């Protein structure tokens, strides 16, 4: 029986038979369907994924005419992380002129709204200069990162300390205080960078700290859109599921804890988000066939109902891309192609 080269969700090589790949694709689809109560992929899409993971090609790609927009969260910090000695503006020029980026993003190395606030006056002139020199849309991006507002990093009591002691009301009161602080920071930084000329603001890794962070981000975006109706807002999510760390928060009558991507998208549209980025977790111990099938099922439930562009977060450790620092080309191009072809994405 012939075996096909593939990988697990942590990137390690494995060999799988046709039956094993088919079983994993079907189980990946079934897992997403069960969790989010969404429609499964069609039999044609299942067959497509099985064939994709049996192809011997090192790199694969979409058909001519199916190309999508590529936006890059935290773009300029990736050169810093790679220890490449270039300035932020040079990084943007590399993305624009050498890497074929369709949307650029300027970011601070400490990629959260809170630490950007005190240095925003240094970010503004960099943005202003970059806008004179570059052509594609240029966003400013940061993470809501509600964790920075609790002790010892911030002013509020830490719900992580309060909850194990059964101090649930106190933990919820702390979340309310954190929300107020973070909304103020996000609207200040977002508004300031938009007034400096940014084409849009990216709220990246939204809801990483759960439902309270999702609430704060929705609130901040709603306020920004009221003040700047033409502002483009991109919202990239942290994971497939909003954790109920507070548990009782609702927005526009929708309980935030436990929301899956297609429901996250509906709320994002309501507050005026322009581009939505679902992020689907990787399970490192399962195969990439399982992970990619599962991601495609979650994301297709978004693109089927979206009124706004959907740019899936197809980076390290999400949406079919292995959780490893050195992402293999065979794995990344399969995730890229599968999600574009099956989900009809507007971008990545």
């Amino acid at each position, binding site marked *: 029986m012939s075996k096909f080269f593939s990988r697990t969700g942590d990137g390690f090589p494995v060999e799988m038979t046709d039956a094993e790949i088919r079983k994993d694709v079907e189980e990946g689809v079934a897992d997403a369907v069960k969790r989010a109560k969404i429609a499964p992929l069609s039999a044609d899409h299942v067959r497509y994924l099985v064939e994709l993971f049996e192809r011997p090609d090192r*790199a*694969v*790609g*979409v058909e*001519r*005419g*199916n*190309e*999508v*927009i*590529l*936006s*890059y969260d935290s773009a300029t910090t990736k050169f810093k992380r790679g220890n490449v000695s270039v300035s932020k503006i040079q990084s943007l020029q590399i*993305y*624009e*002129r050498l*890497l*074929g*980026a*369709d*949307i650029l993003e300027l970011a601070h190395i400490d990629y959260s709204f809170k630490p950007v606030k005190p240095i925003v006056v240094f970010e503004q002139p960099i943005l202003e200069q970059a*806008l*004179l*020199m*570059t*052509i*594609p*849309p*240029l966003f400013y991006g940061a993470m809501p990162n509600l964790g920075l507002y609790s002790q010892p990093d911030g002013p509020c009591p830490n719900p992580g300390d309060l909850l194990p002691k059964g101090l649930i009301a106190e933990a919820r009161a702390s979340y309310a205080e954190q929300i107020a602080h973070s909304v103020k920071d996000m609207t200040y930084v977002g508004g300031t960078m*938009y007034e*400096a*000329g*940014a*084409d*849009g603001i990216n709220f990246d890794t939204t809801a990483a700290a759960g439902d309270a962070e999702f609430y704060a981000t929705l609130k901040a975006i709603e306020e920004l859109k009221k003040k700047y109706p*033409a502002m*483009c807002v991109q919202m990239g999510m942290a994971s497939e599921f909003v954790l109920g760390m507070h548990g009782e928060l609702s927005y526009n009558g929708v309980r935030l804890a436990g929301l899956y991507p297609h429901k996250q998208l509906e709320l994002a549209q309501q507050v005026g988000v*322009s*581009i939505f980025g679902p992020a689907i977790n990787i399970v490192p111990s399962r195969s990439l066939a399982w992970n990619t099938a599962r991601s495609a099922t979650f994301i297709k439930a978004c693109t089927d109902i*979206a*009124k*706004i*562009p959907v740019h899936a977060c*197809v*980076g*390290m450790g999400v949406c079919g*891309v292995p959780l490893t620092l050195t*992402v293999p*080309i065979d794995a*990344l*191009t399969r995730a*890229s*192609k599968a999600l*574009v072809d099956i989900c*009809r*994405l*507007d*971008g*990545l």
Partner: protein
Amino acid sequence: MAVAHGVASGIGGIRAAGDLVARMQVSKGMRLPEAKKYVAGKLGASVADIADPVVMDEIREDLNLGRVNAIPGAAKGIDAKFRIAEVLGIEINSVNLFKKRVGWKG
């Protein structure tokens, strides 16, 4: 990862018309098929050619929309964006800000 995504599924930014299609998502919230069709119409090109770097480079040269190579006298940066705003019929935040700063009467 940027290189692999670009090869697998990217339009190609200013090598082709990726930045222009992105402009329609950013400024009008258009989904991809509508945005590609709109841009193709404004450029007098076919939707299939949107990601073709040879066809699009010719069009970018003709309309002076900024190109990936350093061409003397060709539009770069903000001046390319002035033309893009005009050709696509959209507002660009940095272009409007630039006009305000220089007291543009145009």
